[in-house]
């Protein structure tokens, strides 16, 4: 038995909405700024923008990005 037309339409719309929501979630995640520093020996550390070291790194990076303009 074929589904009723309005259910087909609802399914289609909610499917598009789900896709759009997932796209926005992915976009937000990938747009999240980060700072990572690696050290000799293979060690690396990530610094959050909330920390003092992270704040300085982001500030210095912004200045560097401005210098490239």
């Amino acid at each position: 038995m074929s589904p009723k037309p309005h259910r087909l339409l609802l399914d289609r719309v909610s499917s598009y909405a789900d896709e759009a929501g997932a796209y926005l979630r992915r976009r937000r995640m990938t747009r999240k700024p980060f700072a990572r520093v690696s050290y000799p020996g293979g060690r690396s550390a990530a610094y959050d923008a909330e920390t003092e070291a992270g704040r300085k790194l982001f500030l210095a990076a912004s200045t560097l990005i401005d210098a490239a303009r």
Partner: protein
Amino acid sequence: MSRTKASSPAGNASARAADAELAVARMGEMSPDLRGCAVLDRSGKALAASGGTRAWEEAGGAFLDAADAADGTAASGVHVATEDGEAFAIRDGELAMVAVAERFTLASLMLFDMRTVLRDLASGNGIPDRRAPDRAETSAAPPAPEDPPLPPEAAS
């Protein structure tokens, strides 16, 4: 005894600056997402840069200082991604390279290109041309050898 230009300290400096210019140019060719880059020496002086060396000197030096200050030890590599772009820095011996790329660039490729170019520069042997041969060189290459003749049993 004749003394070549490259063997004098001034000659070494000018040769290194010329190599650094070539390194910056090569980075631009290798990385399409690159906005600009600079090569800094141990004192923080810009040997070459995509734009004005003064701005790159100050900004690049501050970027490396911030990375060193984060943990109290000298950083070998830095990658900071912001909304406006991505900033990179690596060190090799006495040299450092700082670069700015578009947002969402492939960081591993960018760091690989930077390491390759900086390693060549630090070796002191110039910047080898690692680009693929262009069409003119390819067409000038000798033709491929012909297929060997088939054995008699296969030909029959």
